[in-house]
């Protein structure tokens, strides 16, 4: 809503465009009322559907498995995982980077697309942001629990202590601490202020007393005053402006964890850009994996149209190519750079004990996604869903390849080693997925998953003639 006129323009176009090839961002025939009713009813209807209960229950059980795995971890120590010397980092960090990457789509959609005035973002930004928060929460678990003595993790924060000794600010891990916590805070605020007007709507529409009270408290007495809207819009815009460099910085910093180190396969300048691209890549894949079933189940095809699926697919195609370029440059530099360690690394990826995974990675992240060139694929939810899944697998493999393969064979051949995940590695990984789904289920049940007031602005009625 940076510029209202522009919104109107988009809305008009959207309306007139039904006939034309390009599908609109919102199906015609909607009014403020219908939008409001449609979206808020999802949250306000009682009783809860059985499907939801089942899904939530499943996610919850897996979350319990995560807690069990973590409890055992605290009792025994990180030795229950497959890590060793030389491979000091494996699943924990792979998962961390993977989740953080996924967590990039939300803020990107709500902030960057907002600044780029991509009005189609309005219908997906809300749950994309929620997805971001939950993904970052899942990611946040790992840096903490992967330490040998997690109960001392508070030493990573610069608090006044009796040792007169401080964190070591040259360490990328410390940068992570600040980057990730900042990212989480800002995303949370961004998401929440986005929610305020809709919470007001829910407050005013809830039948149930308690619902009314709780939504009321969260809405903080929002009444849609013109003055409030003015300040609100500014704040929202500023936040978007701040979040944009932030979202780019977060994965850059994460990539520093590797780029700053001297390990062959880590120590490369290409990392920041292609980590960010990869993050958006996997982020959109996750958005689609959520959007496609949600719009089906809750019948939101009017709001999440094929246009959205198409655009997301195009974004994936683009970022996918950036990632491919990254791989290309890595390989090229490995060969061209003439550094004996990088050359060996390249050879090792292609012929080493983990070569299979590397080829799988290429298939998942580069070759299969090329199907998205085909329009049918972009518009067919089922195919899109499957491709997104493949991409998510691929991006997980990318992190595995970068972290584990590089560590498994570094400088001294005498200390080369292998890594085999244990069942505890897997339980922790899948556990976080369960946690993510649980949170997602709760979210769609108690909060509007599409921004109601921003949808309203897409309608032609929202137009106001200038003087």
């Amino acid at each position: 809503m940076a510029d209202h006129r522009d919104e109107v323009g988009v809305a008009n176009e959207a309306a007139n465009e039904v006939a034309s090839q390009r599908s609109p961002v919102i199906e015609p025939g909607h009014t403020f009322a219908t939008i409001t009713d449609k979206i808020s009813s999802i949250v306000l209807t009682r009783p809860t559907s059985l499907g939801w209960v089942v899904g939530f229950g499943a996610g919850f059980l897996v979350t319990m498995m995560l807690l069990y795995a973590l409890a055992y971890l605290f009792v025994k120590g990180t030795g229950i995982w497959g890590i060793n010397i030389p491979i000091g980092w494996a699943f924990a960090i792979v998962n961390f980077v993977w989740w953080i990457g996924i967590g990039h789509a939300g803020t990107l959609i709500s902030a960057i697309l907002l600044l780029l005035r991509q009005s189609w973002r309005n219908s997906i930004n809300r749950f994309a942001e929620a997805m971001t928060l939950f993904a970052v929460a899942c990611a946040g678990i790992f840096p903490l629990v992967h330490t040998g003595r997690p109960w001392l993790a508070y030493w990573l924060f610069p608090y006044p202590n009796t040792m007169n000794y401080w964190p070591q600010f040259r360490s990328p891990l410390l940068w992570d601490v600040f980057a990730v916590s900042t990212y989480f805070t800002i995303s949370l605020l961004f998401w929440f202020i986005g929610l305020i007007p809709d919470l007001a709507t829910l407050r005013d529409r809830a039948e149930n007393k308690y619902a009314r009270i709780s939504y009321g408290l969260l809405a903080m007495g929002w009444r849609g005053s013109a003055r409030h809207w003015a300040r609100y819009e500014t704040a929202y815009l500023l936040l978007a402006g701040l979040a944009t460099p932030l979202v780019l910085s977060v994965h850059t910093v994460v990539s520093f964890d590797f780029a700053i180190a001297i390990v062959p396969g880590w120590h490369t300048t290409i990392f920041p850009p292609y980590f960010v691209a990869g993050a958006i890549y996997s982020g959109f894949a996750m958005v689609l994996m959520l959007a496609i079933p949600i719009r089906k189940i809750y019948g939101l095809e009017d709001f999440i149209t094929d246009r959205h699926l198409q655009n997301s697919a195009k974004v994936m195609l683009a970022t996918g190519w950036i990632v491919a370029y990254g791989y290309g440059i890595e390989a090229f530099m490995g060969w061209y750079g003439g550094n004996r360690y990088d050359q060996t690394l390249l050879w090792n990826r292609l012929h080493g004990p983990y070569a299979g995974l590397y080829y799988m990675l290429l298939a998942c992240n580069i070759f299969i996604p090329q199907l998205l060139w085909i329009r049918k694929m972009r518009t067919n939810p089922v195919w899109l869903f499957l491709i997104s899944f493949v991409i998510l697998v691929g991006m997980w493999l990318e992190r595995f390849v970068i972290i584990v393969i590089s560590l498994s064979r570094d400088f001294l051949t005498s200390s080369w080693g292998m890594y085999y995940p244990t069942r505890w590695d897997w339980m922790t990984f899948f556990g976080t997925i369960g946690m993510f789904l649980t949170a997602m289920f709760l979210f769609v049940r108690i909060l509007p998953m599409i921004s109601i007031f921003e949808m309203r602005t897409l309608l032609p009625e929202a137009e106001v003639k200038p003087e």
Partner: protein
Amino acid sequence: MQIFPRSTNAISRASLFGPVFVAAALFWGLVQLQRSPYITYAGVRKSQPVPFSHQHHVTGLGIDCRYCHTSVEQSSFAGIPPTKTCMNCHSQIWTNAAMLEPVRASYRTGQSIQWTRVNQLPDFVYFSHNIHVTKGVGCNDCHGPVDQMPLMYQQASLQMEWCLNCHRAPQDVLRPRDQVFNMRYQQPTASRPVQIDGMSYTDQDSLGSALVKKYQLRSVQDITSCSTCHR
């Protein structure tokens, strides 16, 4: 419709901005607790099998520290006197004082007296008495006015920040080596100058820097390196 009464406004505002202050207060509390005697034992008189009075033995009888703490100049460990040392005198005087029974019992049975440790450092801290004594750090610089302690207690917090105070500015505490065991030593003033090597010093700054040279103290960077105390 109106859901909330007017009063809610104040409450809600408080609940939005209040937590910040609560958290801050909590944090401040923790920081204080960290340094409190409850954690450090500083100034806490721990119960002992025999209520040994340093005041009486040092001030009253004028016994030198090294009579009991024999290894303070040769070893990292200052030494806790064996029962034998107590009995040197107490086989002659106070021979049947009730409070000394544990000592006599120990001597009879050969069972050690089990004192409660007063000045204790964590196990990963390696402190050497001998080097500190050699470089002109006085007993009471760390142990406080032991000669005025009827019951022994730990004077300083013995926390790292406390150690660093001296390690970052040793010249502020150094004294001539012959004064190390003098519990009543006071830093030089114009009225009470301190003589070493024929020079007379009227303030700690000049004395300190002179001693830093004389006793070849290592640079601050040296003595604040981690492995100075941790290995």
